[in-house]
């Protein structure tokens, strides 16, 4: 996205939600805005309808765990299909209690993406119609993509240091 287009988007958000913005950056020229969690649904809805933004397509949504700051990020990627512009929104949540409102009211396609984020990171999406595990077994008691869990299966006894250098 061109710098001037990015400015337009930033101006559009700042018009109404300047207080909600925590950080703005553009790594690899990809506009990324970190916002507070309280008005995330409102902001996404606003970006959906605003004539300068029209982000009416949800490319993806997912989690990122940052163990060093003990926080989980919920990341949204939105696409304006009219002007072919993209934007990334980030919301930082505390890892002990990651709760954020659902955006299934705006994008029905967010349903499974939010379930996946719940499944792998344990993020609770308040108001989600069917928040349960989607890919992992229902009996799983951990959120496996959090970095506090080691990659290998810990229930395995036969792969030990003598043979596999674990």
């Amino acid at each position, binding site marked *: 996205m061109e710098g001037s287009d990015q400015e337009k988007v930033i101006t559009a958000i700042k018009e109404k939600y300047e207080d909600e913005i925590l950080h703005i950056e553009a790594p690899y020229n990809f506009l990324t805005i970190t916002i507070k969690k309280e008005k995330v649904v409102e902001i996404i809805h606003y970006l959906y309808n605003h004539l300068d933004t029209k982000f009416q397509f949800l490319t993806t949504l997912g989690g990122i765990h940052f163990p060093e700051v003990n926080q989980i990020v919920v990341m949204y990627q939105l696409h304006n299909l009219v002007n072919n512009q993209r934007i990334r929104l980030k919301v930082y949540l505390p890892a002990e209690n990651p709760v954020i409102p659902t955006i299934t009211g705006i994008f029905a396609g967010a349903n499974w993406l939010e379930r996946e984020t719940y499944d792998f990171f344990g993020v609770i999406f308040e108001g989600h119609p069917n928040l349960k595990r989607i*890919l*992992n077994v229902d009996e799983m008691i951990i959120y*496996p993509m959090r970095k506090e869990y080691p990659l290998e*299966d810990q*229930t395995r006894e036969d792969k030990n240091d003598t043979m596999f250098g674990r």
Partner: protein
Amino acid sequence: MSGMEKVATNTKSSVGMSEKPEGYEGIGFFATSLEKVVGMARKNSIWPLPFATSCCGIEFMATMGAHYDLARFGSERLSFSPRQADLLMVMGTIAKKMGPVLRQVYEQMAEPRWVLSVGACASSGGIFDTYSVLQGIDRIIPVDVYVPGCPPRPEQIIDGIIKIQHLVETESLRRRDSKEYKTMLNKYGIE
């Protein structure tokens, strides 16, 4: 009993036939144990159920194809219903979520049943040493023969089938009723 003598097991036909089991033959009769006849019949008519989840399944397709031709060993008739299958061939990574499905397929098979675990993933989890993958199907069902390889070549799969055939041929008719067998199944929580 002068007419009785041990029968040679070779046949003269140019078409390879199954070898006669050990027994006694005279004019108009052949005597052997039922176990051996049943073993011979079962060995050469195994109906496999292919449970193929990944690349080992592709190798199995080659094994079934004209070039390697598993039909030569009496296993050309695949059974896609577990209720009619004799041999469960597990080929590929079994995710933990797939575990109960595999187990149900095994439970639906009628005795006698055998299990062939093809490839590193089915046998041990393979390279997928991770939270979502079952670390070897022998954690949920008993396995008779393991075929190593990632994936194994068709020759190796055939070798595994021949080893299964040997088990089928030599198995005692009463084995499935034995206490040891039931204890073994109970260890897996089956029945």
